[in-house]
């Protein structure tokens, strides 16, 4: 299983499993296609007929309302039929294996599987076993990757900043557990971003994170100095229990984004957050609702990006 499972023999996108391993041209192609779909989302009839007759199965082994909803909206705007499966509730608890679940759905004429799973690598396993006309889109696997989120983050940055080759981007927070961070970092480095920084306490940064091509900062003020983009990661409450952090208060004091800390970044810096936000933990309300924040546009771009990804993979043979 050594060749890149995402691309077919012609180098076209057959599945979207991770940003890592995607050539630069494919990444840019996705962003450009997404731009066309933004146009569709802005007009009154928000549908195009491209996936008419195709079935998109949302296989969410980890519960998620917002991501699943955006995939559903994206698929419906492409005129696809959408079936939502909350596996957590049903067959998994009966002990059915992941591959058996997929095989059963495949027998129901699926074209695209959108998969979210708690175990890193699950979508790769599925992609190895689907039929030639079936396509897998990773909606988040464990800590490993969340490629559509990474793509919409890249799209957002490109929308506001245009040229990656001049940017300093800071990713702040729980990088250790974040698939969003990993995907974004891979995308930024592939697109030639000269300075990608991660900011957080040592307990929240994975071993050897520099090997991803980032500079490590433990001091948030230093890390934000001169930054063009600040991406705030969500801090889950379980982290306090795992002896990774003592309290949300202490975390906010040193790693929460406030107007005062943001002032160290460039005056035209943008603030991003994959959502959902913990106000007062990783980000101050005034900043979240302030002029630097592009958190809401991220959501709109997310639909166009997912439309682009779905129409690109579903069209390869």
């Amino acid at each position: 299983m050594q060749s890149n499972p995402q691309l077919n023999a012609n180098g076209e996108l057959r599945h979207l499993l991770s940003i890592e391993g995607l050539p630069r041209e494919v990444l840019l192609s996705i962003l450009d296609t997404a731009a066309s779909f933004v146009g569709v989302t802005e007009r009154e009839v928000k549908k195009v007929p491209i996936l008419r007759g195709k079935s998109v199965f949302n296989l969410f082994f980890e519960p998620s309302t917002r991501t699943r909803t955006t995939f559903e909206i994206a698929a419906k705007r492409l005129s696809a039929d959408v079936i939502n499966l909350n596996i957590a509730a049903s067959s998994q608890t009966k002990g059915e294996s992941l591959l058996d679940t997929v095989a059963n759905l495949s027998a129901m004429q699926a074209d695209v599987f959108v998969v979210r799973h708690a175990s890193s690598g699950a979508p790769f396993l599925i992609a190895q076993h689907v039929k030639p006309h079936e396509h897998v889109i990773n909606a988040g696997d464990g800590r490993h990757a969340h490629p559509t989120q990474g793509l919409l983050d890249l799209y957002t940055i490109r929308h506001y900043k245009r040229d990656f080759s001049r940017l300093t981007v800071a990713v702040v927070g729980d990088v250790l557990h974040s698939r969003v961070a990993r995907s974004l970092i891979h995308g930024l480095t592939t697109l030639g971003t000269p300075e990608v920084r991660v900011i957080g306490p040592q307990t929240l940064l994975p071993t050897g994170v520099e090997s991803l091509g980032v500079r490590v900062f433990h001091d948030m003020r230093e890390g934000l100095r001169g930054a063009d983009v600040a991406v705030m990661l969500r801090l889950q409450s379980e982290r306090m229990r795992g002896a990774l952090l003592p309290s949300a208060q202490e975390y906010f004091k040193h790693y929460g984004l406030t107007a005062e800390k943001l002032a160290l970044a460039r005056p035209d810096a943008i603030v991003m957050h994959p959502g959902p936000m913990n106000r007062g933990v990783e980000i101050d309300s005034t900043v979240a609702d302030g002029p630097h924040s592009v958190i809401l546009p991220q959501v709109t771009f997310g639909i166009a990006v997912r439309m682009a990804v779905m129409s690109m993979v579903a069209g390869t043979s």
Partner: protein
Amino acid sequence: MKPLPDAEKLCAGLVAELKPLVGPNTAMIGLYTGGVWLAERLHAELGLAEPLGTMDIAFYRDDYHKQGLARDPKRTRIPFTVEGRDLLLVDDVLYTGRTVRAAMNELFDYGRPARISLVVLADRGGRELPICAQHCGAKVDVPADMRLRLRRGDDGKLRLELERAE
């Protein structure tokens, strides 16, 4: 084989033909890529009030299942209301008619026009759908293994070219 007609002359001919027919309700949409070049020229010379619309039919093609999504689709921009409009739909070459069919489907997702007139620089025959052009520069014979394309030089001059189809 007969030489290809002069695109500049055909363009001038279309302008002359269309001038008496345009009014305050007329708007124009060009289809990427050759149709947009032609439309930009026509739009300027006809002095239309509404800005030019540009359209990419990538999401409405009927061959998605065979060819997949076209690389780098451009963005459709229609900076006027379609509802009740007299539309001039502009493309460079009319062939099977499938592009125009897709363009009309897309257009109707923006609204219901009063009428659509198709304007093309060249008609090479070979229709596979019941589509015809209301305004056509010239009929051109093209061998089946060749493609007829409109090109725009650095000086802005338009010319027709033949190239081998893949």
